[in-house]
Structure formats: C-alpha cells, structure tokens
C-alpha cells in the first residue's frame, strides 16, 4: 500500500484524517491546521469546500442593512420594524459580550426579517349621556389614548446565524417582561422601556413602549434544526457540515419557521406630555421627535 506524504509531514493512506472536521482542532493538529486555515481564509474558501454559513442559500437576514449598491446604511435609514432600547439599557441586555443576546447588538435591537403584521388603534373616548325626551344622545369628551400595538412576525431559521438571532429575540422579549429583582443593584426597577421604529420616522417615530405580552409559537408541522446558542457568531461551522456544539455552546432545537407576536403599550412620561405636547405641534408633525403618535 502506498504511503502518501502530506504537506505537514504526516502519512496518509486512502482516507480522510479522523481529526479532519470543521470543529475546533485538537492540540496535536493545531500547527498544521493553522497554516491551512490561514491559506483558506486568505483565499475566501472554507475547509471541505462548503459554503459559508451566513451567505448560504435562503438567508434572509441583512444584518448590517446593506443597500443594493453594497454600502452599509445607518440604523436611522433602516425602515424595518425594530424594537430597541435606550443605549444605557441596551448595554445591560444586548451588549456584544452577552452570549445569548449578543446577536441583537448587530441590529441594535430586534428587527423583524419579514414585514410583520401590525395592529394599532387610536381612540378618543366620548361618553354618551341619554337626555330625556331627546332623539339623540349627547356626547361628552372624556379622554384619548393609543391602545396597545400588536406586532406579529414570521421568523425562519435556515442557518446558524438566523437560529441564534431567533433565540436572542425570544430571550430578549422574555427579559423585557420581567422586573429587576432580588440582589440586583437595580432591584425594584420595573421592566425596561423599549422603543419602536419602523417604516420611516413618520409612522413609528421611535415610540417609547413597554412590553405587555410576548408569544412565540413552536409549530408542530415544521422541521427543527440544531443551533449552537451562546457561541461566538464567527463560528467555524459551515453549511453542509455537522454542527459541533459541544464545549462552547448550548445545542438548541429551533423551528425552521415560526411566528412571534409581541404586544407593546406606548407609554410617555408625564413630564414629556406636560412640557412638550400640543395638538398644534402634533398635527404638523413637530412632535415626532418626542415619539408621540
């Protein structure tokens, strides 16, 4: 049997090396694979000649909101529906170092990859008063309000990156329904305020809201795939190869298609209303910067 010498000096005979996989290399093979990895990385190809995880077929996420000509657009120019936090609060939740919410750092909050269905209603309460011997009721104004906003969107998971993003979104909304408690330095603080943007500044002008309810459906009729959650996004795992989830991530089964709905209640501080709100200003759009809708 012919003994074939490899570039790293090892002998090989007719089969792939047992330690040849996409996962972390064993210490003995680090020196050899490092040189290989460097050559492959500089040539923009992956070990095994497989496609990268992120740009694999069907990927719907455009995490950095790249325009059609390839330039990255600022977050403010993004028309997608986004639920985010104030910067200081965001550091407590989806900081880049947060192992599970970290994917949200790239998009500054949760974005809905597909256009979600949104229900929003504005109400003026006019109380009817029945007047004796009258053909019509009399109506007296009581107050106005913006009812809770219901957002229902679809999420698909076709690769690791999308799976990690879905899990991050779920965990984010879970977190937003809970208060600071116990031994936390912020104990007693209610659940955080989130901000709703989308479709441009006129429709949702960074509306301050609280999360009233959150619902995610795990459907029975779709496939589930394994996604390493809590891992660095720069995984060596690539499409078409088994995911190595041991040791550096939590293996999580996620549905390839699922729906997520969240109910947000717009909420404004009394100071903001008292000092800034005028109907004249509101009607000409001058208060969009204060988040009034």
């Amino acid at each position, binding site marked *: *049997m*012919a003994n*074939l*010498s*490899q*570039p*790293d000096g090892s002998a*090989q*005979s*007719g*089969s*792939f*090396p047992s330690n*040849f996989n996409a996962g972390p290399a064993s210490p003995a093979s680090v020196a050899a694979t490092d040189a*290989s990895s460097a*050559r*492959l990385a*500089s*040539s923009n*190809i*992956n*070990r*095994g*000649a*497989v*496609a990268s995880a992120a740009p694999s*077929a069907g990927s719907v996420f455009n995490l950095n909101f790249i325009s059609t000509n390839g330039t990255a657009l600022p977050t403010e120019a993004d028309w997608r529906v986004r639920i985010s936090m104030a910067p200081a609060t965001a550091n407590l939740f989806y900081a880049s170092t947060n192992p599970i919410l970290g994917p949200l750092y790239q998009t500054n909050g949760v974005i809905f990859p597909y256009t979600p269905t949104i229900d929003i209603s504005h109400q003026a309460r006019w109380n009817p008063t029945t007047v004796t011997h009258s053909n019509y009721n009399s109506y007296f104004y009581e107050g106005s309000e913006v009812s809770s906003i219901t957002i229902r969107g679809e999420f698909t998971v076709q690769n690791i990156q999308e799976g990690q993003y879905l899990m991050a979104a779920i965990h984010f909304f879970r977190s937003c329904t809970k208060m600071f408690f116990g031994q936390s330095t912020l104990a007693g603080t209610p659940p955080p305020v989130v901000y709703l943007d989308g479709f441009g500044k006129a429709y949702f002008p960074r509306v301050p809201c609280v999360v009233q309810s959150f619902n995610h459906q795990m459907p029975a009729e779709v496939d589930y795939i394994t996604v390493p959650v809590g891992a660095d996004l720069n995984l060596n795992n690539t499409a*078409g190869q088994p995911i190595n989830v041991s040791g550096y991530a939590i293996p999580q089964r996620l549905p390839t298609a699922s729906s997520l709905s969240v109910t947000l209640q717009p909420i404004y501080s009394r100071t903001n209303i008292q000092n800034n709100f005028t109907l004249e200003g509101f009607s000409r759009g001058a208060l969009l910067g204060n988040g009034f809708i």
Partner: protein
Amino acid sequence: MATFTADTSTTRPVYDRNSPYGRTDFYGNFLDLINLPTIPKLADDQFFTVNKTYQFRPDLLAFDLYGDAALWWVFAVRNPNIIRDPVFDMKPGVKFFLPKKQTITAALGI
C-alpha cells in the same frame, strides 16, 4: 501463431482509492487505460479563483480543503473544460468549481 500472455508473476503496485489510478485495471504488470472516477457537478459547488498561494499547487489546495494532498487531481476531473493540465493550469486568475468533501467521499468511497 504466438499469442501475448500477461506476466502475472511479479507483484503489482496497489493504488489507493484516493489515487487517480484507484479504479484503473491492470493488464498483467501494465496499467490499462486510465479509468477516472466521475465527480458529480453540484449546483452549490463553490467557485474558486486561483491565487498565488495555490499557483501550480493542487496538492496544497487539496490538503487544505480535504486534508489529503493525494486528491490533487479531483479539480481537473471536476472541471475538465477548464483544467486540462492538473498542475500547470492552476494559474492565478483561473476560475473553477471546487467539489465538496462529501461529494468526493461518496464518489471515491473513502
């Protein structure tokens, strides 16, 4: 009339399945016409442009991609219209498709 008889008295070399001669038959001590395996052309095979790193080095590319330098010849088999000479056609700028490791594993039975 004399007839040709193959000499089977000497030991023949054995080619592994990762060799281009792995499927080629012997006629006596001589290799028959080469019988290259077919490597399926898949729609999601990656397109690769040769750079200076891999210039004239299909063995290095095979080692980096598949962990086996003996598979240097698979690129020429996968891209017969682009790579005629498996070594010296690997010039910078030449573009061809890379067969996936799984494809080669299945095709060669290794």
